[in-house]
């Protein structure tokens, strides 16, 4: 039970080996366009006009991505509109990332002689840092170094029957081996929260799960709307799901059967290992950025897709540092999107495959991708922007 990974100075283990250039903007884009082996993050929010809490959420994402074990070293630039806020000062971001023992370089147009000078300096630095990073070698490490994050989306009834149970099997296996696993999407455990709460490590964690749901449900009610006009989304309803409760009861299957160790804020790193619930919104890419910032070295999207008819399928993948896998249990989705699907468990429904064997196949796929095989979405250069999961109004 092992995979091949990169051991970082703080002992964490990466499945990829990037030089990260953040935040987004002209400087990052210019460097990443010209230097192989670099990654950035394309968020649409710089923090301008955001509350302190939301600015801290943005900072958690930037710092967390920098500390992610899939990142060998980091270049930060000070040309972001939000950089004047105390939470987003480039020195603060640099210090907190550097605490992990990684090399961190800062570009500042004021000191460098302008934006173009920073780009030139950054390109030179990035080329050197990428070559330096390439000297890291993969070594065999135990499964306790896996840190997985999952979201289920475009869910349909195959998600609860076979797709999410396969993820649950994987999560149980990885948690048993001493690894870490995240699930989230608070709206989508409404109606199933008691399943997770009764598996909480202690009464405080159980209460935190119920409180997170109560808070989110009260917000939903404050709209004056039937939640079903919002979530389940139309694709869920077209796929056979009839209520939020039904969607949630299928969704919690991806949690497996392990003890829930804690409830984390968006982008918050867990204090220990095991299964964690992340209190956040369901937005696909924002949730993956949160998982990666919390330390995920591989993330998965468990797709239903019964209500999609192919048109919105596979619009790309988020530019995060964790390899991104598509999984599905829907035979039609799989047929439509074989080029994009990394793992298929519809055989449980159509051919009576033993769910445990389906879970083992998923485990082997994850180990393979963690060890360096590209996921299908990783063969694309196209990436989509990420809307971060912020909670408060902007002014």
């Amino acid at each position: 039970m092992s995979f091949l990974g990169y051991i970082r100075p703080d002992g964490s283990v990466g499945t990829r080996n990037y030089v990260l250039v953040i935040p987004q903007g002209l400087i990052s884009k210019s460097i990443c366009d010209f230097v192989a082996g670099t990654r950035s993050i394309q968020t649409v929010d710089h923090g301008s006009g955001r509350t302190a809490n939301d600015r801290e959420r943005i900072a958690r994402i930037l710092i967390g991505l920098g500390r992610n074990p899939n990142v060998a070293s980091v270049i930060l630039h000070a040309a972001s509109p939000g950089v004047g806020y105390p939470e987003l000062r480039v020195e603060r971001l640099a210090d907190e990332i550097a605490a992990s023992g990684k090399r961190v370089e800062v570009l500042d147009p004021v000191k460098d002689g302008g934006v173009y000078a920073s780009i030139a300096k950054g390109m030179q630095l990035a080329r050197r840092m990428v070559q330096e990073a390439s000297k890291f070698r993969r070594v065999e490490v135990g499964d306790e170094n896996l840190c997985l994050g999952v979201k289920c989306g475009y869910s349909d009834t195959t998600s609860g029957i076979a797709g999410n149970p396969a993820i649950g099997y994987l999560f149980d296996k990885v948690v048993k081996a001493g690894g870490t696993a995240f699930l989230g999407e608070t709206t989508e455990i409404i109606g199933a929260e008691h399943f997770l709460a009764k598996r909480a490590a202690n009464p405080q964690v159980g209460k935190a799960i119920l409180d997170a749901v109560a808070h989110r449900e009260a917000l939903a009610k404050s709209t004056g709307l039937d939640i079903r006009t919002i979530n389940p989304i139309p694709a869920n309803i077209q796929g056979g799901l009839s209520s939020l409760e039904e969607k949630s009861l299928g969704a919690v299957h991806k949690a497996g059967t392990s003890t829930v160790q804690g409830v984390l804020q968006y982008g918050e790193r867990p204090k220990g290992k095991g299964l964690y619930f992340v209190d956040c919104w369901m937005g696909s890419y924002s949730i993956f950025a949160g998982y990666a910032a919390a330390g995920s070295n591989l993330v998965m999207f468990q797709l239903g897709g019964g209500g999609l008819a192919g048109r919105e399928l596979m619009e790309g993948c988020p530019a995060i540092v964790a390899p991104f896998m598509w999984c599905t249990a829907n035979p039609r989705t799989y047929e439509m999107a074989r080029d994009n699907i990394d793992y298929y468990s519809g055989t449980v429904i159509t051919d009576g495959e033993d769910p445990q064997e389906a879970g083992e196949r998923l485990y082997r796929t994850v180990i393979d991708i963690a060890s360096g095989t590209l996921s299908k979405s990783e063969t694309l250069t196209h990436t989509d922007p990420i809307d971060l999961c912020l909670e408060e109004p902007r002014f």
Partner: protein
Amino acid sequence: MAAKRALIMHSKDNVATTVEELQPGDQVKTAGGGEARSLSAVEAIPFGFKIALEEIPQGAIIVKYGETIGKAARPIPKGALVHVHNLEGTRARGDLDLEGREKR
């Protein structure tokens, strides 16, 4: 014609999930959730949708995974499609007041 398949997730459930397209009059045999049951579809039901395993009176709880997934918005005959037209959610209903009545 061979009976078509539908899956029951839990023995308490009063709906099953179809894993084949059903036409009116199709015979259905269930798997999962205890003993296999036979019933006939009273209307077309697409792949992955729910079929009522018994007559469900208006207002009665609809159960899948052994848990509440909603309640019947109208009487549902045995063998009928169960979906948003005859099942309503019970959670996060901002459109209802504390007594469960529609807000004005």
